[in-house]
C-alpha cells in the first residue's frame, strides 16, 4: 500500500489523516525533508497559508516540495490550494507555483462568511450531493488549460483536477464523505 504524506506544519492535518484512514489508506505526518522523501503523495491541508509559507522557508522545505510536486501527486485543500497556485491575490504572496491557476485568499470574506454548501452537478462518483465546508475560503479566479473543473459553487470552481494533482477550496476532510479523498487515492495508486 502506498503512503500519503500530510504536511503537518500547521492546520487541520489530523483531520486529513483521519479522512485517509476512513478511505482505507495509510497516512503519515510530514514535517521534514526526510519525511517527505518517504511518502508517495502529499496533502497540503487547510490552515493559514502565511504560517505554512514561513515554516517552509525556516526549514528549507520550499524547493524540496516543488521538486516533489514535479514528480508525485499533491492534493491541496483551502490553504493548500493557495500554496499550490501559480498566482495568489488578496494580498499577492509567494507560492509553490505548481498549478496553472489564480486564487484569491479569503474571497468570501471573514469567518462570518464561512458556510456549508451542498453541491450538485459535480463529477464525483454517484449523484449524492457533495457537502462542502468553506472556512474563510479562497475563490479560484482562473483555471489554466491543464485543469478540469469537477465541482462549482455559485459558478466558481471549487474542486479542480490537474491530472496528477487535485485542489479543493473547501474541506472534504471535515465531512464523513470520502469521495474526494478516494479520488485522490486513485491518482496515487495509478502511479
Amino acid at each position, binding site marked *: 500500500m502506498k503512503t500519503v504524506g500530510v504536511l503537518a506544519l500547521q492546520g487541520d492535518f489530523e483531520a486529513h489523516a483521519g479522512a485517509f484512514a476512513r478511505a482505507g489508506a495509510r497516512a503519515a505526518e510530514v514535517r521534514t525533508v526526510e519525511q517527505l522523501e518517504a511518502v508517495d503523495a502529499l496533502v497540503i491541508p487547510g490552515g493559514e497559508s502565511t*504560517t505554512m509559507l*514561513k515554516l517552509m522557508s*525556516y526549514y528549507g522545505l520550499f524547493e524540496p516540495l516543488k521538486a516533489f510536486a514535479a514528480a508525485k501527486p499533491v492534493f491541496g485543500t483551502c490553504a493548500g490550494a493557495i500554496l499550490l497556485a501559480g498566482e495568489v491575490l488578496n494580498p499577492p504572496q509567494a507560492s509553490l507555483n505548481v498549478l496553472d491557476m489564480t486564487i484569491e485568499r479569503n474571497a468570501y470574506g471573514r469567518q462570518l462568511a464561512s458556510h456549508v454548501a451542498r453541491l450538485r452537478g459535480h463529477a464525483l462518483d454517484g449523484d449524492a450531493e457533495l457537502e462542502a465546508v468553506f472556512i474563510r475560503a479562497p475563490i479560484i479566479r482562473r483555471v489554466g488549460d491543464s485543469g478540469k473543473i469537477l465541482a462549482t459553487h455559485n459558478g466558481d470552481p471549487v474542486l479542480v483536477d490537474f491530472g496528477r494533482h487535485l485542489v479543493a477550496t473547501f474541506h472534504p476532510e471535515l465531512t464523513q464523505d470520502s469521495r474526494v479523498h478516494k479520488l485522490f487515492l486513485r491518482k496515487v495508486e495509478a502511479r
Partner: protein
Amino acid sequence: MNYLDETFRVKVGLAEMLKGGVIMDVTDARQAEIAEKAGASAVMALERVPADIRKEGGVARMAAIRKIREIMANTSIPVMAKCRIGHIAEARVLEALEVDFIDESEVLTPADEEHHVDKRAFRVPFVCGCRNLGEALRRIAEGAAMIRTKGEAGSGNIVEAVRHIRTVVREMKQITVLGREELMAEAKRLQAPLELVEYVHEHGKLPVPNFSAGGVATPADAALVRQLGAEAVFVGSGIFKSSDPETRAKAIVKATTHFDDPKAVLEASEELGEAMPGLDIRQMDESQLLQTRGW
C-alpha cells in the same frame, strides 16, 4: 446541543484550521504585522497585554474598536478579540465588527460573576478558558467552539498552564475507562451535561479543539504544553514583553510545530534575548489570580 449542527461545525472548522499554530496577543497594527511575518496563525487584538493589565490594574474591558479595526485592516490572518465574561453586549459589538473569533476571557474584568455568554446564540465562534474538564464541558455546552486551558495570564510562568492541561487530559483519560452506568455520577461530579461526558467517554477527547494559554514565555514552554496534549498555543505577554519580539515570535512558532523534535526546539531556543520577567504564583495573593474568574 447537536454537534452535527451546521453553524457549530463551521465555528469548529475555523478552530481546526488554527491547530498546530501560535495565536499571538497584539496591541496595534505594527505588532500584528510582526506576528503575521513571524508565522502566527491568528492574532488576538487587545488594548493591553495581560502583564500590563496586571501591573496597571483598574477595569479591563473590550479593546477600543478603532484598535481592533486597525489590526483587522492590516492582517490577512484571522483576528480574535476579547470580551468580558458574561458581557453579551460587548460580544455582540465584536460580532458586528466581524472579528473572526471572540475570546470570552478571564483576562478582562468579568461583567457577570454568575453567567457566561450564551454562545449558541451567536454566529461568530467563541473560545473560552478552563482549568479542568468540568469547566471545559460547561463552556462547550454554552456553545464554545474552542477551549483553551487558562494558565495564569501575564505571569510568564508555565506552571498553571501545565496544571490545567494535565488536569483536563487526566480527567478525560479517566472517563474513557468508566462503565456507561458510571457516567451519570461523573457528570454530576463534573457539573457538566451527560451527553458531553458521553462524548468524552467514547472519543477520549473534547468535541472541540483544545489549546493552551497563560504563561508561555519561551519556545520550550510552547513545546511543553504541546507535548502534554495542547493542540495549539496562545501567547500573550510572552512575545511583546520580551527584549526581541520578532526573534522570539519566530522561535515560538518553530517550537510549536516541531514540539516533539528536541533538536528543532534547541535550534529555536538559540540566540534569544531576555524573556519577559516572570512571577512566582505561590507568592501571589489569591485575589491577583486571573484564572479563578469564571467557573
